[in-house]
């Protein structure tokens, strides 16, 4: 069996009939330790990726089929500690304590064992049945590190398996250990800390009730000492004695060490981790390979001049792809597909013809979006992320992005936004902080995507002049910066400064990259395809049913009075919500001409393009926002941008009108 990396073959022997998963296993560990790779290896391609209920934290779930057993595997977010400081930590802590997975698999980076064991020690405090996967053994070996797995296993009292997840090595053994652990429930041994800390833990623990709110007594005692808000809240009324003892002990600890008790305990854990590592790890002379390679690449990637050049090259490449290759493939696809059936919105015809036209237009729209823009972008994003370049870019751009209240990582969604807003919004997941995630998504919806670029170029650049088109672009960028700063102040929630790990570079692993791309594309298709098809049908049907004239009438005050546009543009803007470049198609269909300068004045053309650029994001974007951030955020953004578009359009019409 060794060497069969993607061990999906066995699945065929155990057809995934409507059999219920027997066991639940959670994968927990630091970020950048190969947890996702381990998850992919364990579960194969059949994964269910969504969000934790009510949270903007990604939740991945899959099924491990091994030795006739069906095991549900949940991939917990990558975290460094189990306090409740971040949403990720909260989600993980609650899942482990309340959902009680049968086994927690702690995926660790063998090349940075000390810090990883710090996290392991917290899992041990939680007393969950544990299996430890020492991952990235290849990286450790290259750094000259060898680890006595047996000894570590004995010391901690749980199975320890060495793995190289991206190569699929050790996955079989890990699966065996997981299956074994579902039966034997290996309870980790308690790791004792320093005397002065242990005394106080014992004192508090003795005063606790038998079942202190779902968490183990020792954990609860430690958390009380640390002054953990949730635990204090839970225990304060139920065991006031314990609470009082904890507060006093905590203060004593603070006095002895001169630091907050929580920091003292973290230091104790690190001390215990150091001792464990000293017992099981040996360092030989390193092969001097990976670290120095990383150092060499970093000398370029983080160089004050060359780093930015490299960055400009990659971002420029992404833009070039959008405007040249992507546009070309998109046009090519439309040519082929329109040979099968016309893709312009139909104005007259029978109901069935109109419904078919709507569905077909929607399908074509989805295909011409996903094939040229989404898949290549997701592939590149996965490569940048997987290789370790993303963290370097964040580092280089952090300062600049701070001006918009964002971290450096937000550059990726913003650049992707030039292609299509939907994948860009979904890619905001790479930002950890919830506030910044939402802020980035908001700004992404303002970035001129390829569809809006088509409108600006097709309407303004062609029929007014290129300078006005560029001016619109410039105005948009100014808006992004200004609104970014304003929204940063207005949005609730704290924005914490960046503290992130810099992993070593490695070649992106093919199956991981493809898996990542596929999962992201799939969740995008789930949004875009129905939105396009149903939306197109609905609007063409409304058109056929003669509902459009009333729409024009309702929108008359806005389109005609405020914006100075012909009344028929009301319908055009409604079409545009399905997909922004539909505005051009609809405009042409209604006026019966593609020479827009014959039917609209230059000011009208500019206002039309400006409003199209800014008003409500397309329906797929709205759905993507709703999926990631909830309907409230999605609708607020839509309303805000529509209002802004109308206001700016009105200003341009009334101010520029007399001059042009």
């Amino acid at each position, binding site marked *: 069996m060794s060497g069969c990396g993607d061990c999906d073959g066995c699945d065929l022997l155990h057809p995934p009939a409507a059999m219920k998963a027997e066991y639940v296993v959670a994968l927990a560990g630091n970020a950048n330790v190969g947890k996702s790779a381990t998850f992919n290896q364990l579960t194969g391609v059949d994964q269910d990726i969504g969000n934790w209920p009510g949270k903007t934290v990604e939740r991945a779930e899959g099924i491990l089929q091994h030795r006739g057993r069906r095991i549900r595997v949940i991939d917990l977010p990558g975290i460094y500690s189990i306090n409740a400081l971040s949403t990720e930590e909260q989600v993980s802590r609650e899942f482990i304590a309340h959902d009680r997975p049968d086994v927690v698999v702690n995926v660790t980076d063998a090349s940075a064992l000390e*810090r990883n064991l710090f996290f392991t020690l917290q899992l041990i405090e939680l007393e969950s049945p544990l299996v430890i996967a020492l991952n990235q053994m290849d990286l450790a070996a290259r750094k000259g590190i060898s680890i006595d797995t047996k000894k570590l296993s004995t010391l901690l009292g749980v199975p320890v398996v060495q793995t190289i997840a991206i190569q699929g090595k050790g996955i079989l053994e890990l699966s065996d250990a997981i299956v074994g652990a579902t039966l034997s429930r290996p309870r980790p041994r308690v790791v004792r800390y320093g005397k002065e800390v242990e005394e106080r833990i014992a004192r508090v623990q003795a005063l606790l009730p038998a079942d202190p709110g779902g968490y183990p007594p020792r954990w609860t005692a430690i958390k009380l000492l640390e002054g953990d808000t949730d635990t204090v809240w839970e225990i304060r009324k139920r065991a006031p004695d314990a609470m009082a003892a904890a507060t006093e002990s905590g203060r004593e600890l603070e006095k002895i060490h001169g630091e907050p008790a929580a920091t003292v305990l973290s*230091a104790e854990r690190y001390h215990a981790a150091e001792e464990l590592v000293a017992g099981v790890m040996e360092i030989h002379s390193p092969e001097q390979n990976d670290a120095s390679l990383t150092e060499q690449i970093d000398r370029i990637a983080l160089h004050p001049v060359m780093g930015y050049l490299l960055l400009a090259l990659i971002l420029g490449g992404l833009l070039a792809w959008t405007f040249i290759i992507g546009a070309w493939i998109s046009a090519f696809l439309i040519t082929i597909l329109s040979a099968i059936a016309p893709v312009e919105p139909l104005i007259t015809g029978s109901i069935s013809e109109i419904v078919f036209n709507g569905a077909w237009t929607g399908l074509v729209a989805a295909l011409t979006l996903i094939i040229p823009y989404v898949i290549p972008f997701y592939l590149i994003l996965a490569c940048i992320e997987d290789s370790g370049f993303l963290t370097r870019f964040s580092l280089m751009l952090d300062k600049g992005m701070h001006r918009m209240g964002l971290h450096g990582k937000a550059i990726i969604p913003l650049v992707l936004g030039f292609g299509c807003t939907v994948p860009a919004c979904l890619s905001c997941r790479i930002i950890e902080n919830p506030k910044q995630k939402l802020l980035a998504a908001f700004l992404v919806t303002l970035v001129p995507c390829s569809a809006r670029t088509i409108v600006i170029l097709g309407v303004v650049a062609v029929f007014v002049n290129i300078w006005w088109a560029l001016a619109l672009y410039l105005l948009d960028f100014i808006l992004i910066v200004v609104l970014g700063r304003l929204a940063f102040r207005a949005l609730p929630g704290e924005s914490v400064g*960046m*503290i992130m790990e810099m992993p070593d570079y490695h070649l992106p692993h093919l199956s991981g990259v493809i898996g990542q791309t596929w999962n992201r594309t799939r969740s995008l298709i789930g949004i875009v395809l129905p939105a396009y098809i149903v939306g197109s049908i609905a609007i063409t049907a409304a058109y056929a049913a003669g509902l459009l004239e009333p729409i024009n009438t309702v929108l008359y005050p806005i389109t005609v009075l405020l914006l100075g546009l012909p009344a028929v543009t009301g319908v055009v803007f409604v079409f545009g919500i399905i997909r922004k470049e539909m505005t051009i198609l609809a405009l042409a269909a209604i006026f019966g001409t593609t020479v827009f300068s014959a039917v609209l004045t230059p000011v009208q053309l500019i206002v039309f393009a400006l409003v199209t650029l800014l008003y409500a994001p397309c329906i797929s974007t709205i759905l993507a926002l709703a999926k990631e951030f909830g309907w409230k955020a999605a609708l607020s953004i839509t309303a805000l941008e529509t209002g802004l578009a109308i206001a700016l359009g009105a200003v341009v019409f009334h101010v520029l009108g007399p001059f042009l």
Partner: protein
Amino acid sequence: MASEQLEEYLESILDIEEMHGIAKTSAIAKCVKVAPASVTEALQVLSEKGYVKYEPYKGATLTDLGREMACKVKRRHRLLEVFLTDVLHINQEKVHDEACKMEHTLSDETECALCKLLNAPARCPHGSLIGACDRRVEDCSSCLAEAEQPPASGRNGTLIPVTSLKPGQKATIAFIRGDTSVVQRLTDLGLTLKTEIQLVRKAPLLGPVEIAVRKTRLAIDHAIADHIFVSACGEKGG
């Protein structure tokens, strides 16, 4: 020479040294606003007292003793600037000159009280970093919590923020200031007290700094890193 003058000289030399490496007589004269001839004279006195290393025609550099003294005055100066700006709302333009006069008369006790009152600020109103105090504390919070502790005498070596290390330089963590959640996050990532770290590089334009700790590398926001104080290895102060 009056101690006030002496401190003024040391401060100027520290400033010039940071920019140019060595403080030339002419530069010092410009900074202290006296004739170059008086500067030469003063440098000889300072050199005799062991505060500077003076080489005629080249300029002066601070000795460890001189540096410690200069840093201390600088710290007071900047603390006073914060006090004048934030508490007394004195006009920004006047703050520097006012602080210049006040800094020389401040006692250790007052300095400590001022620091507590201002909640251990990290930077002066002009954006320059305020150095660590020389009390024997490992964390500002313990100092802020215990209001009545007599000022202690200096500790060994000067503490500098991690952002002042040179790339490749190693140091051990002395204390981290800042609010509890940030300190906790840094501690969780392995930045516990007395841990050895190494500054790998600083991103341009006051961007994040990259440090190596416990076989991993972390990128830390410059503003946060300013609050991580270390004692640099291989350097013995005082």
